[in-house]
């Protein structure tokens, strides 16, 4: 009994139940046809959501006002720079990866510098910097769509026994991040700062160093996601990061991480990412047009947040 109660109180449970319900609804509608393919696609697209959400989760956990709005711009810039540098050559794959990560590193450092030097809320700092990075991506891209190296494209679409390789990689990343969050000084510092920054500071936690590391990590993960997504979709597009602004935040919040900070969990990210993708798939299967799909996606996200906030208040 207490075991069941413990499971019911897990913050990630609802995201996973939601994903399961939406998937079953789709499967019932299609009579089970193509359900495995849907799941496989969900794992692939979910992986991209989870990469950026891992970073966003640490940022949001730092406390109220901490959100990284530069993720889309960072992804686009990293993808653009990497694709242009590789120019489709297989030998340049590591170079492209290094460049994408370097772009992320740079974006994160610049974001933190703005937050610290101008002492402005992270929202406005990452918002202003994202304008500049988006422009840089437009300027660097020049409307060209350079194809990724074939080997890299193949890697992002490869499957082992029907399971996308990229999903396996990101699951491994999530496990590592779970350990980082729950078992390392850094992860505990992030949580402590989110719960009470002043108390964390008085307890001897290096608040500013932790914040710097978090923003840099978040942007670096965005850079990695931009690199992989550009490879997956056959080149970097200027709007490729657009939908990740909402989804990075939505995945974190639906996954059961407290938007007020100080409380995070990794398993919920995967549940929420699958939920979001399967939701859109379900609406597509039901034959909903673009307008209806957008309205319902928005309403469901708001509904989940309303429900989640109610649950947290009662405890």
């Amino acid at each position, binding site marked *: 009994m207490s075991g069941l109660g413990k499971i019911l109180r897990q913050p990630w449970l609802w995201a996973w139940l939601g994903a399961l319900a939406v998937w079953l609804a789709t499967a019932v509608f299609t009579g089970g046809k193509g359900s495995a393919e849907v799941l496989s696609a969900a794992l692939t697209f979910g992986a991209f959501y989870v990469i950026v959400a891992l970073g966003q989760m640490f940022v949001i956990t730092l406390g109220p*006002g901490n*959100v990284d709005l530069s993720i889309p711009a960072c992804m686009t810039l990293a993808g653009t720079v990497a694709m242009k540098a590789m120019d489709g050559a297989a030998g340049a794959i590591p170079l492209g990866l290094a460049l994408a990560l370097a772009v992320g590193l740079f974006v994160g450092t610049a974001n933190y510098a*703005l937050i610290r*030097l*101008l*002492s*402005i*809320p992270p*929202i*406005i700092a990452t*918002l*202003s*910097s*994202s*304008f*500049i*990075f*988006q*422009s*840089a991506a*437009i*300027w660097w891209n020049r409307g060209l769509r350079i194809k990724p190296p074939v080997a890299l494209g193949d890697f992002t679409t490869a499957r082992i026994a029907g399971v996308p390789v990229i999903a396996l990689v990101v699951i491994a990343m999530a496990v590592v991040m779970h350990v980082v969050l729950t078992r390392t000084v850094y992860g505990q510092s992030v949580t402590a700062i989110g719960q009470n920054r002043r108390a964390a500071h008085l307890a001897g936690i290096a608040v500013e160093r932790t914040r710097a590391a978090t923003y840099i990590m978040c942007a670096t993960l965005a850079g990695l996601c931009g690199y992989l997504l550009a490879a997956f979709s056959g080149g970097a597009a200027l709007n490729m990061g657009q939908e990740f*602004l*909402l989804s990075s*935040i*939505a995945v974190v*919040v639906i996954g059961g991480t407290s*938007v*007020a900070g100080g409380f995070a969990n990794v398993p919920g990210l995967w549940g929420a990412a699958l939920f979001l993708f399967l939701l859109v798939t379900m609406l597509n299967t039901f034959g909903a*047009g*673009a*307008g*209806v*799909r*957008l*309205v*319902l*996606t*928005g*309403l469901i*996200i*708001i509904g989940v*947040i*309303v429900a989640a*906030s*109610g649950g947290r*208040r009662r405890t």
Partner: protein
Amino acid sequence: MKGALFSPRLLRGLLPPLSLAALLIAIFWLQPRTMSYFGLNLLLNLAVPIALATIAQMFILCVNELDLSIGAFVSLVACITATWLHDTPLLGVLALAGLVVAYGAIGALIHVRQLPSIVVTLGLSFVWLGLAVLVLPTPGGSAPAYIRALMTLKTPLVPFPIIASIALAGIVHVALMRSAWGAILRGAGGNAEALARAGWSILRIKFTMFALAGFFGVLSGMALVGLTTSADANIALRYTLLSIAGVILGGGEFVGGRVSPIGAVIGAVTLALAASFLSFLRLNPDWQIGAQGAILIIVLALRVLISQIERHR
């Protein structure tokens, strides 16, 4: 004596108008032909809907929330204006009034459930965009004649956009900054608890502020259609960022209910002019968005500098 001349408080207040003046002088210098009735009209036309959206955002920021859906909302209003309001005026008016009430209700919901406004409004941006696509699936529609006539009004001596901006700043300033009613509304951003203890309903204040934001968002969308004569679902998406940037440029703060309507309008006009300035500079159009970001960062940096002077005194 010297302290009175260069008081940091005065400096901070002067920062927005000085930035605008500097930008205007630079534009006149680069392109003297803009220094005429028609030049200014062309230059400032599109500043009117941006200023209205910025005022809308200011009401939200004033109660310590943030609206990431205002751009999609203005797009939706533009779509309704160009279709329903043009074809079946009664339905159009009802829909727009409904939207204002919906905005207020969202403010109430955010307050009652203590929701993060960033996430709620991000979700809402999808709802507004989806509704806009449903109302107007392909770009088109046409502006009602009276809105078109108002937005292209040829006022004597001073171009209409300037009169409209000054009137907007003046009216909102008097209502929000100079009235007892406005002081209470702003108080919800400053110290909600004190206000609640004094017997005011924070719920009603949040509803009012969000409804006001919705009202000015509606005006923004109508003004925009009056200028462009047709609409599409993505017409004003960039207004979200422009409006936040405009409020901040105008001296608004993120918390504490410290906002300035006059500053917000000046900030919006500055951002609208920045685009023209860059094109006169023959700067690569790729860098237009980036330059707006850079201007924002520079103004924020100047503000930090002023605060530091303040601290040294």
